[in-house]
């Protein structure tokens, strides 16, 4: 750990005594090999594609910190990306993302299950076999009934409000099941069956090829019914992973220690290297960054990047910069071009917007190339399955816009001197406000006048931009949006955004109201395809969306994250856009 020299003052006795007092604390022994690697062996962005400081060194404490709080540490009650990354330390789902950097990390591999789900011929039943011999921290064996119960309890949203909603929608009869807290029958939900202690089957209402991704969420991690205390379970989660709860002070600090019952064969993706893992919550964001760089904290849990002050420090210092990464954060910021609001209902008018937009200004609005993101030309993000690079509207080759082509498109649209339309954005998001203003000024260059309408983000989708009737009546032809996929393929990324079948009267996320039969058919076709053939479809969907000019991509979001030199086995897990928390070790012995 590098630290600046101590201040050379003759400190007053009391201060000295207090400083000495602070030197106390736990120490942990350390064994293993590999070492942490010297500072000279690391470089900027190394953690995006490679494992930095590979090591099997054990011992020490890894301290995480978060500037806010988790939605819940209960694996059945969270939708935060960093919590889904973190909770695999103590809760093992049926399947999980492979622990490796780059696109390798997009793969799904078995977790608690012996293999990925086996789907029946009709695509309606998914079967998982559990590894035998897996126990909770107290030695109680894990059974398929525990997994069934874990999934069932998430149906009661009055108790567990935060998690994803896939099971009630996908499972047969799921929408009517109230969850085990209200349903006291022994059988529970009939569409989840457990033929034996180590087999679980999910019976779907209709085929869903991405079901493995659904069970990769932490809500498939087993929960013993006898230990479930509903809303209080977050305080004492029963562990099946390498670590277990030692103490949890709500919204202040969680301490995990090694799970003595854990065997490496249970979960080949996680490591049990550090003796202890501590996470401090509600830490001032700037204080967090400074403590991170000073070595008092090893990981910024949220993984969304350092604040502006720390960013400036890191980018100005080679020694700090070499210990940081600038990965894709998994978000696409973009602008919907509504295909039903005139004159944008005409393809050529939408194409004119694509050409006229100044992408560099939009990038600046989101924070520039490092903190904001990379200029985007597609709706799929580069590290997602099915992504193929293309650029129909010169977003990357002529980022300031091609006004000649924009004017030509306007002429073809029948609006040679431009037109006027409304633009919706979230007024409580400064970056979106700036992006809206940037687009307004760049489109004005070709005579397209934007009337800006700001709305609160809380009900942006439920009451305003996500309500087609409202969009039409207020002439909102252009609407800002953003999307992060629940899993890294075209279905996870694009289904809700551009599939014509997902258009709804409120809470609509296909704000472009794109209902292109070509795209809709591609989604239908994808349901009956697998492997490379299926992945190729996502690329076709992406291409067709851009051809329809229904979306103006702004940036593939990026973040600047600091990689503590104390950490071992550090790399960015693409699914989460942050370091893979279940692989980390430390060379620090304090």
């Amino acid at each position, binding site marked *: 750990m590098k630290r600046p020299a101590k201040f050379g003052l003759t400190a007053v006795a009391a201060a000295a005594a207090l400083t000495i007092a602070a030197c106390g604390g736990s120490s942990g022994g350390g064994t293993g090999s590999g070492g942490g690697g010297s500072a000279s062996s690391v470089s900027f962005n190394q953690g995006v594609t490679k494992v930095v400081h590979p090591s099997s060194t054990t011992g020490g404490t890894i301290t995480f910190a978060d500037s806010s709080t988790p939605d819940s540490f209960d694996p059945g009650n969270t939708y935060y990306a960093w919590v889904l990354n973190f909770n695999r330390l103590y809760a093992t789902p049926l399947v999980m993302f492979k622990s490796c950097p780059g696109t390798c990390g997009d793969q799904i591999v078995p977790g608690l299950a012996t293999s990925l789900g086996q789907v029946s011929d009709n695509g309606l039943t998914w079967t998982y076999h559990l590894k035998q011999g897996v126990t909770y921290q107290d030695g109680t064996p894990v059974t398929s009934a525990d997994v069934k119960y874990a999934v069932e309890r998430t149906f009661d949203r009055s108790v567990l409000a935060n998690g994803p909603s896939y099971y009630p929608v996908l499972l047969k009869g799921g929408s009517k099941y109230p969850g085990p807290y209200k349903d006291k029958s022994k059988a529970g939900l009939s569409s989840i069956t457990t033929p034996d202690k180590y087999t679980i089957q999910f019976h779907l209402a209709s085929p869903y090829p991405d079901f493995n991704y659904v069970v990769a969420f932490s809500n498939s991690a087993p929960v013993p019914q006898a230990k479930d205390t509903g809303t209080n379970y977050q305080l004492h989660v029963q562990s099946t992973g390498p670590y277990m709860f030692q103490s949890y002070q709500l919204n202040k600090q969680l301490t995990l220690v090694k799970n003595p019952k854990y065997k490496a064969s249970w979960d080949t993706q996680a490591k049990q290297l550090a003796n202890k893992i501590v996470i401090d919550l*509600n830490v001032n964001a700037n204080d967090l960054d400074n403590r991170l760089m000073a070595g008092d904290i090893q990981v910024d849990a949220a993984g969304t990047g350092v604040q502006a002050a720390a960013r400036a420090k890191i980018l100005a210092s080679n020694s700090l910069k070499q210990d940081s990464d600038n990965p894709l954060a998994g978000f696409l910021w973009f602008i919907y071009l509504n295909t039903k609001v005139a004159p944008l209902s005409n393809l050529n008018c939408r194409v004119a917007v694509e050409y006229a937009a100044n992408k560099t200004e939009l990038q600046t609005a989101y924070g520039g190339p490092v903190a904001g993101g990379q200029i985007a030309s597609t709706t799929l993000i580069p590290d997602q399955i099915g992504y193929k690079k293309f650029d129909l509207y010169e977003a990357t080759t002529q980022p300031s816009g091609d006004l000649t082509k924009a004017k030509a498109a306007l002429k073809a649209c029948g609006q040679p001197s431009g037109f006027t339309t409304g633009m919706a954005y979230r007024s409580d998001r400064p970056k979106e406000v700036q992006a809206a203003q940037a687009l307004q000024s760049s489109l004005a260059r070709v005579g397209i006048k934007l009337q800006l309408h700001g709305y609160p983000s809380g009900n942006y989708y439920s009451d305003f931009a996500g309500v087609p009737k409202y969009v039409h009546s207020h002439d909102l032809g252009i609407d800002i949006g953003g999307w992060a996929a629940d899993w890294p393929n075209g279905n996870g990324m694009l289904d809700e955004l551009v599939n014509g079948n997902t258009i709804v009267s409120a809470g609509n996320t296909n704000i472009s109201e794109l209902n292109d039969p070509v795209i809709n058919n591609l989604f239908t076709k994808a349901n009956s395809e697998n492997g490379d053939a299926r992945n190729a479809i996502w690329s076709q969907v992406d291409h067709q969306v851009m051809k329809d000019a229904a979306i103006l991509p702004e940036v593939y979001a990026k973040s600047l994250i600091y990689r503590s030199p104390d950490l071992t086995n550090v790399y960015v897990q693409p699914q989460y856009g942050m370091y893979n928390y279940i692989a980390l070790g430390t060379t620090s012995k304090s």
Partner: protein
Amino acid sequence: MIAFIIRRLFTTIFLLLVVSLVTFAIFFLLPRLAGQNAYQLATQYVGRNPTRAAILQIEQKLGLNAPVYLQYGRFLKALVLGTHYNSGSSVTYCPPPCFGYSFRSQQPVWPQMTTALPVTLSLAVGASILWLVGGVTIGVISALRRGTFFDRFSMAVALAGVSLPIFFTGLIALELFSYKWALFPNVQYVNLTSNPLLWARNLVLPWITLAFLYAALYARLTRAGMLETMGEDYIRTARAKGLRERTVVVKHGLRAALTPITTIFGIDLGLLIGGAIITEVTFSLHGLGLFTYQAIQNQDFPEIQGVVLLASFFIVIANLAVDVLYAVIDPRVRY
């Protein structure tokens, strides 16, 4: 005196009732008047992309679909009589004073506040001792040495102290003494009972930062009060009687000058115990201030209501204590 205290306690209860009503109205009534319905309110407390059914379940669980007056009535009832809460697997009793359950974490609010209270008390009491001793001493010396270099210098520092906001001085203190020179590294609250020295070490910077602001204010107030008092006839009489200068200054001058200081000290201390928001947020101390900040960010009504009432309670009690102290400090005051 006892009748006075009883009267004031009754006033306190009435005041707290009004405060709770106003807070409730701000949180629930104003959004309704602005056109927001219970369903929209409930969407704030469900995760990403919730189904309609999930939002309706939360709306019902939090009681947001009931008339506003009924929601307020339920809140008051729980405060006085306690309430039962369904945690899913079981029904638990929340004893009075039950400030309800957090809309976000679904955990009772009262235990969270009581665990935050020692942090705020540690901060407020330590800082108040520093600023009271430091501020009053500097103020007295400045008044007695009016026009000297010490007077001018200390008043200039005091002016800076009053002018500089805590989030600025706090960040400077952290940057220099915690990150750069590492004299006080890794500042975070440690329980007094588990490690008293570390407790004190980690609070030194917050204490000094907070005290710097208040000491400056108190130094200027004390100086002004002392200058006025030392010019009074009875001070001249005391000196004419041949009393020692120390007795004149401390017993006759300072005692009279302290009355307004005591008033303001009571209010300041009460306010701080209710939550030193900026200081706690700057230094990441998990006291009532940080709790309040988080509650506001999360729009978590039970937490906001709880902390507002607790803060009001401390302010009222501190004022009561000040009024009682008047009688001790100033012999002319009788109740």
